[in-house]
């Protein structure tokens, strides 16, 4: 989250909006967002239809250290201006890869115009 926050000025130049999605409740997310001074929105999706739609939801292991299922895996999704998913990656985001991907996407978009 911090890494995305750091790169927001670059995302802006790439006409990209960052949106966080979590199964946590809005109050928890408000505190989380404030504690990290995040400058992009995080939405609460407690009934995880978004996680399911984007394939980030799972009802099987791996489990968290306390034994609870890790329902919402960490997944980065890039949706282009036409609403098409162009990038999917699990685990910690690779911000340099994401930035390069967005640059190519923007060039592709401008080429089509």
């Amino acid at each position, binding site marked *: 989250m911090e890494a995305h926050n750091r790169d927001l000025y670059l995302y802006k*130049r790439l006409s990209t909006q960052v949106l966080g999605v979590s199964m946590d409740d809005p109050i928890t997310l408000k505190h989380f967002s404030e504690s990290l*001074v995040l400058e992009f929105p995080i939405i609460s999706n407690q009934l995880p239809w978004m996680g399911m739609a984007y394939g980030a939801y799972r009802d099987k292991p791996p489990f968290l250290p306390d034994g609870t299922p890790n329902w919402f895996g960490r997944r980065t999704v890039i949706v282009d201006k036409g609403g098409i998913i162009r990038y999917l990656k699990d685990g910690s985001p690779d911000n340099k890869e994401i930035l390069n991907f967005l*640059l190519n996407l923007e060039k592709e978009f401008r080429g089509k115009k």
Partner: protein
Amino acid sequence: MNQKVKFTGILGTAAVIAAMIGILAGCATFAEKPKPAMVPTERGMVVFLEKYEFKQPPAGWALMKNVEGGDFELGFLRMEKGDFPSQTTFMYDDLPYGGQRDLEKRAQYYCTRFLFNSGIDLRVTQREKMQIIGLDAVAISMEGENPNRKEKAKSKVYLAKKGNRIISFVCTQWRPLNGTYGQEAFDHFEAFVQSFKFLKKDFYETFEEELTKAGL
């Protein structure tokens, strides 16, 4: 007939294996030796991966380098006399905590995250604006203790504005609660910082140039 076919097959396999061994042996003979991470220069400095030049600390300091992405670019570690955790680390970290691009705001936020997971109750003992290696910077000195784990830490951090981003140099000395801090390690850190040179544009500088070229 069957035996003959089988025999030919074995010979064929042997030929393939021989060829593969030949190829592999060729690789071993002509492969370049991996370059050392640090190459000494005539000016008494070292060049790290052709990216940075700096004064290397003396023998006894182990190089820590980032191999798979993570929290810092490069650093040094020295295990010191005394009970655990007597050691000092210092490093160059190009992605310090926080996202603020304003130096003062970043410094304020940084102090809320730094050593957070260690349980050290950290306090800022000194904070001042200055210039290091030609960059606007904030120098922060911090100290704190964790009575539960019977350890304490003393840190010096430089946050510096480099282009549109903020980079950092960090030194932390760990001691048991009854241990004594030493200045010598911090002197090596200062020499490291004051001698630090960027030999190449970093990813972000290059990326921003690409954005400008693309009219973005």
